[in-house]
C-alpha cells in the first residue's frame, strides 16, 4: 500500500514538473501593458503617433526583445533609461517580471529555433567592403543603409536552464567559456509583410530552419531550407515557383545573414585561436 502511494506521489510530482515554467502572470501583464505601455507602444506593439515622435521601437521585433536579458528589461522598466522613462513609480519587481514575460510571449525565440539551446550571444554586424559586395551580388541589387546592419544570435548547447537559454553578455571571459564545439548555429530576424521572420543557420551557414506566420514563407521553405553554405559558390538566389516574392525576400535576408554570421564565426575563431588543443 505504501509502495502504491509512493508511486502515485511520484506520478503526481512528475505531472507537476512537466508543466512549463511561466516567467510571469500573463493576465496581470496584459492589464499593466494596457495601462502603462499601450499609449506609446500601441496595443499590438506597433508605436502610436506619440510613440513614433519619441522614438519608441517596434515591440514586435524579436531581435529587440531577444537581445536583452530579463534583468536588463526589468531594470529598464523599474528605473528607466535615458531613452525610456520608468512608467511612473507604480511597478513592482513582480509587475516588471510579468511584463517582460508578456513582451517575450508570442515572438519567435531562440528555443523555438534551437530546442536544445542553453546559451546565446548577441552582436550587431555592419556589412562593408567585400562582405557588402558579396551580399549585394547575391541579391542582385543595392542594400539599403538600414539593411546593412544585422543582429546575429550565436547559439550554444549545453545544460539547459529551466527558464530558457541564457543570454551571455559580450564579456571576453564569459565568451571564452563558450566552447565552439557546442555551437549549434546562428539566428537572424527579419520582416516579411507585417510579421517577423526568423531564420536559423547551421554552423556551416546553410539555412537550417525558418519560422514565420506568413503562409508564403511555408510555401517557399522547401526552396530555402538546406541551401546555402560557407563557400560563396554555394550561395545562390532561392527560387520558388509557388512563392517567388517570398523566395526573393528570403534571399535578401539570407545574403545579409550569411555575411554577418561569417563575421561572427571569424570573431569566435580568433577568440579561441590560442586555446589548448584539448580545450579546443
Amino acid at each position: 500500500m505504501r509502495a502504491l502511494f509512493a508511486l502515485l506521489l511520484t506520478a503526481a510530482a512528475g505531472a507537476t514538473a512537466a508543466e512549463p515554467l511561466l516567467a510571469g502572470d500573463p493576465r496581470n501583464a496584459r492589464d499593466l501593458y494596457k495601462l502603462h505601455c499601450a499609449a506609446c507602444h500601441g496595443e499590438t506593439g506597433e508605436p502610436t503617433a506619440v510613440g513614433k515622435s519619441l522614438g519608441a521601437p517596434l515591440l514586435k521585433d524579436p531581435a529587440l526583445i531577444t537581445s536583452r536579458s530579463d534583468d536588463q528589461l526589468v531594470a529598464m522598466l523599474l528605473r528607466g533609461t535615458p531613452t525610456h522613462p520608468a512608467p511612473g513609480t507604480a511597478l513592482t519587481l513582480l509587475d516588471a517580471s510579468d511584463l517582460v514575460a508578456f513582451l517575450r510571449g508570442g515572438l519567435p525565440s531562440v528555443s523555438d529555433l534551437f530546442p536544445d539551446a542553453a546559451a546565446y550571444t548577441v552582436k550587431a554586424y555592419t556589412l562593408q567592403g567585400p562582405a557588402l559586395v558579396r551580399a549585394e551580388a547575391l541579391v542582385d541589387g543595392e542594400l539599403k543603409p538600414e539593411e546593412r546592419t544585422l543582429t546575429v544570435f550565436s547559439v550554444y548547447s549545453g545544460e539547459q536552464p529551466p527558464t530558457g537559454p541564457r543570454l551571455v553578455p559580450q564579456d571576453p571571459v564569459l565568451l571564452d567559456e563558450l566552447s565552439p564545439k557546442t555551437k549549434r548555429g546562428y539566428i537572424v530576424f527579419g520582416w516579411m509583410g507585417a510579421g517577423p521572420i526568423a531564420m536559423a543557420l547551421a554552423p556551416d551557414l546553410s539555412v537550417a530552419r525558418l519560422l514565420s506566420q506568413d503562409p508564403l514563407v511555408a510555401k517557399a521553405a522547401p526552396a530555402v531550407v538546406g541551401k546555402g553554405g560557407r563557400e560563396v559558390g554555394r550561395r545562390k538566389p532561392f527560387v520558388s515557383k509557388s512563392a517567388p516574392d517570398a523566395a526573393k525576400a528570403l534571399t535578401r535576408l539570407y545574403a545579409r545573414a550569411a555575411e554577418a554570421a561569417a563575421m561572427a564565426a571569424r570573431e569566435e575563431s580568433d577568440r579561441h585561436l590560442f586555446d589548448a588543443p584539448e580545450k579546443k
Partner: protein
Amino acid sequence: MNRRSAWLAFLLAAAIRAQPAPPPEMKQPQPPPPPGAKPQPPPDAKQPQPPPAAAQPQPPPAMKQPPAPPPPAQTQAAPEIAPLVSPDIAPLVPPPPEYTLSLKQDEWRVHLTFRPGNPEPGKLVVLAFDVGRQKEGDAGEPQPFNDGKLALAVSGPGPRARYLVRALGDAGVYGVHWTPSARGLWTLTLAPYKEAGPNVSFQVGVGVAMPASAQGRMVQSSRVVVTAGRAEAPAPSVKQLMAELGKRWLDQSAAPKPDPAELKAMAKLLKAVQGRVPRELAAGAAEFDGLAARETAQLEMGGLPEPQSCLQCHLKFRDGWVKDLSKWPEVKR
C-alpha cells in the same frame, strides 16, 4: 304613545350630544409642518402637564401662523445628527486583509503571506514567501535561504500551471503573482526546480472560505488608512488618486459598456487632482489644470478617456519627459 315617542326622541338626542368627538386628524387634514419645525406630538399622546396659564411661555409665532413657504436651503437649521456620508475618495476604503501561513518541512521553514487574503477568481494575488532553514538542534531564528531556484505549481478547478518564483531582494524573501482562473479550492506547491529547497504544499480557497487544513490566519494590514473622524482623515496624494483612477479606468475599459456611476466616481477623483501640479512644474499649473479639467468633463459626459489623452499629461507632469505639448501628438524631448 306620543309621550313615549317624545321621551325616546329626547333620550336619543341626549345620547348624540354626549358622543365623544372624533380625533382631530379625522376632522380635517392638517398642513405638513415646515421643514425646520420640531415635530409636534400627537394630541392624544401623554405629555407633561403644562404649567399654569400665567407662566406658560408664548408659543413661537411660526407655530401659530399658517405654514410659511420653505426657507432657502442655506438658512435651514442644521440637523442634529449629520447624515452618514461615504468618503469622497475611494482609496480611503481599507485594503483587504492579508492571509498568512507558516509551513514546515524537515529543516525548511516557510512563512507565506498572500494579498488579498480573500482571493477572488480573475483578481491578482501577490504571494510572498519568507524561506528559512533551521537544522535540527540549531538555536535562534532560521537562516534565510538565498539564491533558491523555486517554482510554484498551482492545481485546482482551473488549468494547472507552474510559475517561476522570484527573489525579491531581501534575504530569503521570494514572491510570485498569480491570477486564479476559477472559483474553488486550489492546491499550491512551492518546490525547487533546481538544486535544494523547500517542498511544501498548501490549499487556498478562491471565492470560497479558506480550508481548515490551511491553518493560516487573516491579518488586517497594520497601515492606518482612515483615522477616526472625517476631518482628520489624510488627504490622498496625487499618486494615490491616480493609482485608483488607473485601476478604475482599466476595469471600465475592459467592460463592454462603461458604468456611468463609475465614470462619475472617476471624475470626482480627477477633480481632486486639479490645483495640485507638481511643485517643480508650478509654472505649468494652468495647463495641468486644463488637462485635468478636460478629462473630468469627458468623464462627466459619460466618456472614458483615451490612453493618449492620459499620456499627454503624464509625459510632461509625471515623467518630466516632454516640455512642450503644444504640437501634440508631435512631441520632442
